[in-house]
């Protein structure tokens, strides 16, 4: 029992005959930035989906703080404080930035449907309180100028930022980011890196991210897990991982 916030032990996942993950174990410490990297098809997204409860592993356990689970389901993951973003943005295109982020507060809303429909005192107070929380996030991510813009009209980089905002609205303990920089230009990547680091630093959120861009990973992560063909082949600080022969082979290819 270390200071690990999240621990994955011996997780294996198969789809029919395809083994996506084989006996993968690693932990995530409180307040760290933990990256999962690996070549295409290494099982990175599968790993994230297991943590998030979208996929159910055939073997292994997941521990979140003191609670141990055979498998997760998305609703339980959310109530345990695990939020995520998606590789392909999954926002409500027709809704404004503000409303999209507000949906992230969903689990925190206590008032029932009737109270909200009639706009009763408690519902009104609650709405104000949530709006304040959302405004903090808008300020944090510097998206004041698009507060009222429908998300579908925004460029890709900003949509990614809004998605991060919605995940933050749930005030998560752990934030799972699935390729947050994919498809971005240099400047957008740099902005995103800064926001991820700020979230980690200012809000104290633990971050697990999958990323293709090695420069980004090495720059912002505290520790890195490397997967290849569903197996963990390395685990350590960026420096350690970079020098690992297995990792170099996995990325550059090796004659067998």
């Amino acid at each position, binding site marked *: 029992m270390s200071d690990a916030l999240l621990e994955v032990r011996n997780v294996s996942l198969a789809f029919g005959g395809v083994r996506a993950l084989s006996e993968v174990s690693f932990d995530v410490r409180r307040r760290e930035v933990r990256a999962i990297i690996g070549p295409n098809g290494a099982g990175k997204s599968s790993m994230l989906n297991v943590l998030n409860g979208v996929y159910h592993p055939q073997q292994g356990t997941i521990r979140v703080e003191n609670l141990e689970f055979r498998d997760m389901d998305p609703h339980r993951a959310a109530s345990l404080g695990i939020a995520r973003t998606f590789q392909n943005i999954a926002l409500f295109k027709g809704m404004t930035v503000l409303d999209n982020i507000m949906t992230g507060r969903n689990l925190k809303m206590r008032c029932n449907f009737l109270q909200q429909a009639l706009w009763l005192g408690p519902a009104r107070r609650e709405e104000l309180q949530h*709006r*304040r929380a959302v*405004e*903090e996030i*808008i*300020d*944090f991510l*510097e998206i*004041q*100028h698009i*507060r009222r813009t429908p998300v579908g009209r925004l460029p890709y980089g900003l949509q990614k930022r809004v998605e991060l905002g919605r995940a933050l609205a749930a005030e998560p303990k752990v934030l799972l980011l699935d390729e947050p920089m994919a498809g971005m230009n240099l*400047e957008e990547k*740099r902005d995103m890196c800064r926001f991820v680091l*700020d979230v980690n*630093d*200012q809000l104290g959120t633990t971050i697990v991210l999958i990323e293709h861009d090695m420069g980004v990973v090495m720059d912002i992560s505290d520790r890195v897990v490397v997967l290849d063909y569903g197996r963990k082949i390395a685990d350590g600080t960026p420096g350690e991982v970079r020098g690992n022969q297995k990792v170099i082979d996995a990325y550059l290819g090796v004659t067998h």
Partner: protein
Amino acid sequence: MDTFPKLLMRHARERGARPAIREKDRGIWQTWTWRQFADEVRLLAAALAAEGFKRGDHLALIGDNRPRIYAGVCAAQCLGGIPVPLYQDAVATEMSFPIQNAEIAYALAEDQEQVDKLLEIQAQCPGLRRIYYDDPRGLRHYDQPQLMSYEKLLELGQAALARNPGLVDEEIAKGLGNDTAAMFFTSGTTGVPKGVVLTHDALIDRSRAVAEMERLGDEDVVLAFMPPAWIGQNIFSYAQPMVAGYCICCPESPETVVNDMREIAPTYYFAPPRVFEALLTQVSVRMEDAGALKRWLYKYFMAVAKRVGTKLLEGQKVNFLERLKYGLGDLVVYGPLRNVLGMSNVRIAYTGGEAIGPDLFSFYRSLGINLKQLYGSTETSVFVCVQPDGQAKADTVGPAVAGVELGFTPQRELLIRSPGLFKEYYKNPEATREAKDAEGWFHTGDAGYVDRDGHLRIIDRAKDVGKLADGTLFAPKYLENKLKFFPYIKEAVAFGADRDRVGAFVNIDMDAVSNWAEKRNLAYSGYTDLAQHDAVYELVAGCIEQANADLAREPELANSQIHRFLILHKELDADDGELTRTRKVRRSFIAERYGSLVDALYNDQETVHVEAQVRYEDGRTGTFSADLKIREARTFAPAAAKSAA
């Protein structure tokens, strides 16, 4: 009431509950009343005193328009210190000169970005002992001993005031009108920047003269969105509110200005021409995308406005039918348009700092917005000439404001004597002597004359007014402005001094031209690619030929028509030193940097190869090469133009 702190304390007594500053924060406009603002200033001043800030010390202020930045300005003045606002978009190296020159030991920075810059130049500026920051975001792990948060600073202030409650008020009472109130570094189109020293008397006198002329009062509202280091912004959002008691509003972020403007609906507005131009471009671009009915309505009623709008604003006679049409237009087009621009409540709008295009100027006036021109500079506490209501002409800047005397040298250089004149250039007696002669005349460096109605007309910078090889007048800025007034041209640089004819570099306006290209299915990959399109050259040639036709009608300038031009491969940029921070073209720098391009304008080359160093925003450099086309533009014989026109 001869100093700003005294004025502030008076407002706190007389209109303590009225708004002094608003700031949009977390989506809500937060108000500081005059009393709250005065309390904050007192606390901050006490804190600075506790930190060892003394009479005559300089406090650098680096940030956007924020209540705390303005509180910092006044707090320094309370102690007899001198606030020095610096441009928040300047790169670190540009900041080191003012900080060294004014021996600045204290700085108030808005956020991490500004703190980083100050730390970067720490080695060159060892005198900079204290850096206070407003927004702590990202600064948690900074352990430099010179850093302190604004909150912490206020705590020091509380402690200091608890020990000695009268501390700040005693210091305020010691202040005199001829003390230095502030120092502004002029961006300087040539050479190193100069620190312009202005007294309380100068700033207050000029602010008051125009506040009286325009009957400004505490009901007025201003949106502060230009850099506080620019004297214009400082006058409108610090000096004049201190005199007239009106409220200033700080936008949420630079990107939200248009929206914030609509929410606040200011009554008093000041912006350089380029802001008005950008707004108009936005309107035109959006109108082009509108439906057919809307486009027709816009076209029809804008034509009505063009015919009679300005006349109505000037109070001239207009027949009943036209009046009716204008009224209808106001209902369906002008009113909504003013609302979109956030100018529904604007009572007085000024523009200045640069010449404004006649079409642009009359566009706003014909909408019923009382846009007027003014003339002034940092050295004159802005207000030298202001157009009075009902006398706004596109090509003049109005008559002298009360208290100002105008004069001219034989070379047509404008001279000014005014109570608003600066005291000196800081630690630069030589430059001071050059600019201000023994009789107290300030040599503006601008060439111009006073017209029959007593309105001042500026032609160009006096030193730039040159001669072509055949001896005729060459006024480059006049030509450049003529070109810039076309929506498709963003910047222009004219060459011709001591040459036989005039050539020009052009920057296209990316917004306008890309929209134009899209409409024509012209594919391009970026600025450079678009700029070198034949069709774009055709478009720009058309603009230049129109300008030439205009020039042909002015006997003195007919010879300076533009013969050849090229479109530059990159946009001129202040970060590369090609423009000043106030976006004025640095012609000689450009001529030197692009010497081979200038040469190519004057031999018969069809194209010229350019290889350039580009500096990216993160400080890295790269090289870039392209072939630029050079084109001839049609010119007109002075007589022929008359018949063509």
